[in-house]
């Protein structure tokens, strides 16, 4: 499993205020929304190949999807006006809006959608990024321009999540892409303006630098509040914050707690917390094996003992982690699915939570026969090996580094020694698949549909005997869990499905194999003088906003603020001119001084 550096999130938007003064005039009275590009960057503009968040942020703006998502993560209309299921739950019929046109004027029809989905279903290359979303599709047809019929092999509850902004499949114009289907692998999709449909049109893009958009005034879900949008890439969030402070950016999604705290005081800025859509936690290699049950890897045998795993859970103080590592800007972890999607969240029943209790941890280990050796490290009575465990952490994740320091400290007090290994993502994943690890720091984010995330804990995710394939995180495999997994897939009733999903999370919680530490809040910051409405929804009692689909609704609904920006900008411009002038003057003076001194002494020196 892997962490998404900047997570996915959905949001609904509520437009506020009327458009007024420009935040950054780029024409006569035209307005531009300037935001930081997702930290992951854009890997490719080819939506069949792209994996990175940054790319899907762009696609959400420029390619349509069948459905949209509201702020609770429920599917809503977009291209599709309405949809129905057949009684056997195997056939879905979508009615598409009439009269929508691609940016080059060609009408958008059901055939475009059918072609896109069929390509992904049939062509391996086209399925590179999103093949799994349609793996259960039997056929997709477009009987007429406004009707799309999807037949699934087995009943599938989440068909309306398959094509949604950011986490689902973007629909591309068939007339443009048809000719590229042959060499899809090498198609960079970089002729601008990009032919597409969405709130925006991509007019220019420079890798690692920026993407520029024009607003689509006729967008079906509402007209964007700005005339243009620029997404600018910053490697360092601090640099982006500096740009924001000096008025070169309007909005940043995904800052860290320190930055958040530092910016809270700035009255020009609005800091925003959103409910987290991912988890950070510890995975335990309790029993690495292949699908056929063959043992693999070098995991510590004692981890197979639930007592040891539970002791580790008891020795983890989630409250302190939230307070120290995330500055309090996170929710203590328990259930496997993040709080951003409240329909799936699960909490242990009162009394069933694992508390932070070092004494208890010591006690159960002692009782189970793990006695301390001379160096204070307990010894596994079965294998005779001391409880010295490797903890793999991500090299590029500051949270991992922070948490691991705490874990090390706590586990030491219960007689378990940690050896922290910092690994690159690839190295970590390579070790993971081979089972060559004991403990791993990990994290996942997820969109509103939990199927994929739950799926990685099934037996089917274990690797094959030859070491290939496999998608597992912790080699978890439980019959009951698998049974429930299959059941929820075909459960169309939301409440019933949530119950099953909850049961599954309960199994995971008790197994102590995936120990959730926290679900960190998404932290954003926006300039109050240039933009309003980029964050939508109502904050809860703790001031937390619902998870935002910022790249879609947020940017669509954002409008220029009425504040007097120009004055502020001029002031800072004048300041900088003053500064530069001063420096230049100083240099000239110094240079002149040196020259003069030299002249005067030229004769009598040797």
């Amino acid at each position, binding site marked *: 499993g892997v962490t998404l550096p900047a997570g996915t999130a959905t949001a609904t938007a509520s437009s506020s205020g009327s458009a007024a003064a420009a935040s950054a005039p780029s024409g006569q009275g035209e307005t531009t929304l300037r935001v930081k590009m997702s930290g992951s960057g854009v890997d490719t503009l080819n939506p069949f190949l792209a994996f990175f968040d940054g790319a899907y942020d762009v696609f959400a703006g420029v390619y349509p999807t069948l459905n949209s998502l509201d702020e609770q993560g429920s599917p809503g209309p977009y291209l599709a006006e309405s949809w129905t299921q057949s009684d056997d739950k195997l056939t879905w019929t979508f009615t598409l809006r009439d009269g929508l046109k691609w940016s080059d004027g060609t009408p958008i029809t059901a055939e475009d959608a059918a072609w896109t989905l069929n390509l992904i279903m049939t062509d391996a290359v086209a399925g590179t990024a999103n093949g799994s979303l349609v793996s259960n599709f039997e056929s997709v047809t477009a009987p007429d321009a406004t009707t799309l019929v999807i037949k699934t092999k087995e009943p599938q509850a989440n068909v309306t999540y398959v094509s949604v902004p950011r986490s689902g499949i973007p629909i591309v114009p068939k007339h443009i892409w048809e000719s590229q289907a042959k060499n899809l692998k090498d198609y960079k999709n970089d002729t601008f303006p990009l032919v597409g449909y969405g709130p925006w049109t991509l007019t220019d893009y420079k890798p690692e630098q920026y993407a520029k958009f024009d607003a689509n005034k006729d967008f079906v879900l509402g007209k964007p509040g700005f005339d243009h949008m620029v997404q600018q890439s910053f490697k360092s969030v601090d640099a982006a914050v500096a740009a924001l402070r000096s008025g070169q950016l309007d909005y940043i999604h995904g800052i860290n707690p320190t930055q958040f705290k*530092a910016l809270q005081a700035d009255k020009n800025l609005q800091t925003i917390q959103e409910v987290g859509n991912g988890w950070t936690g510890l995975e335990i290699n309790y029993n690495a094996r292949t699908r056929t049950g063959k043992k693999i890897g070098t995991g510590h045998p004692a981890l197979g003992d639930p007592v040891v795993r539970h002791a580790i859970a008891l020795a983890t103080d989630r409250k302190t982690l939230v307070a120290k590592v995330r500055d309090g800007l996170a929710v203590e972890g328990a259930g496997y699915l993040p709080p951003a999607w409240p329909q799936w969240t699960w909490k242990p029943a009162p009394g069933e939570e694992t508390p932070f209790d070092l004494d208890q941890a010591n006690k159960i280990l002692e009782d189970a026969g793990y006695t301390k050796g001379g160096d204070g490290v307990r010894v596994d009575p079965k294998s005779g090996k001391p409880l010295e465990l490797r903890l793999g952490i991500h090299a590029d994740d500051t949270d991992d580094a922070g948490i691991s320091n705490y874990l090390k400290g706590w586990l030491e007090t219960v007689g378990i020694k940690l050896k922290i290994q910092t690994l690159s993502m690839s190295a970590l994943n390579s070790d993971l698949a081979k089972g060559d690890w004991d403990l791993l720091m990990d994290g996942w984010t997820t969109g509103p549909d939990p199927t994929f995330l739950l799926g990685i804990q099934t037996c089917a995710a274990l690797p094959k005997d030859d070491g290939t394939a496999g998608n597992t995180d912790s080699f978890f495999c439980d019959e009951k869990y698998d049974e429930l997994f299959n059941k929820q897939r075909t459960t169309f009733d939301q409440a019933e499905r949530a119950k099953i999903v909850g049961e599954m999370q309960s199994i995971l919680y008790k197994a102590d194999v995936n120990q959730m530490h926290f679900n960190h809040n998404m932290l954003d910051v926006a300039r109050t003088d240039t933009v309003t409405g980029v964050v939508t929804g109502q904050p809860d009692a703790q001031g937390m906003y619902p998870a935002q689909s910022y790249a879609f609704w947020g940017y669509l609904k954002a409008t220029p603020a009425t504040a007097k920006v120009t004055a502020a900008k001029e002031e800072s411009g004048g300041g900088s001119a003053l500064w530069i002038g001063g420096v230049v003057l100083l240099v000239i003076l110094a240079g002149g001084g040196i020259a003069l001194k030299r002249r005067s002494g030229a004769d009598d020196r040797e």
Partner: protein
Amino acid sequence: MSALDTPAGLDVPRHHAFSRFCRAFAKRPAGLAGLGLLVAFGVLALAAPLFIGDDQLNVIKVDGPQLSPPVDGYPLGTDQAGRSVLLLVIWGARESLSIGLIATALTVVLGSTVGLLAGHYQGWIGKILMHVTDWFIALPSLPLAISLSAVLGQGAASITIAIAVTSWTATARLVRAQTLSVEARPFIERAKVLGAGNTQIMIRHVLPNVMPLILVSSTLTVASAILSEATLTFLGLGDPTSVTWGSMLQAAFLGGAVTAGAWWYLMPPGIAILIVVLGFTLVGRAVEHVLNPRMVGR
């Protein structure tokens, strides 16, 4: 850059070479200042365990304010976990210095051996060694170090090796050049006529004469090794859980200290690096001056 010529005139009264060296060194204020800085840091680093307890650095035991500017009891403020930045900087000296010193030791051993052999055996052995050195010189050191520590896995050990692998060429080239110049001097011929073989010549005659240069170059190597360590760690190739100056800066940088304006977190490790690197450079240059009379007066 011959460091061989006899120091300071022909008429130095009989004295042991070392005390002569010390006295000459003592006359260079910059070198003494550098040495002073290094000794101060060295003592602090060595003595750190005496006055820094586990409860001051272990995140689960500290209870300072988080990322706070200097306050009572925390003269240089605290980091995100509430540890005293001052203590961290002192503790960081231990690992930063030892990475620097170990990397240098590796560099010097590898570089001097190759350089000495390449300079002494001017046949095919020398040629091959020289070519190998040249090839390695063509490898850009920072990308190579990055790649190596990416390959070897994260952490102090691989950074140390990466630094050594990328910096031995400079030493080798220097030592080779110096070996060649020593080998061209008449006393080598005299030793040959007296019956000395290759090993004896290398060990008894060339090495002692190349040694001062190696000494100089190794102090400078320590300086750049410490810089490299910081850079590699900053780029995320180090061990973020260990306390080194590089990892402190990385944590500060990634943790948003710039935005928070946490100068007390950013400045001390940087200044510590500056001081130690400067110290080694000053000492190196002073030693060079002392050993190389041509540089007298610089």
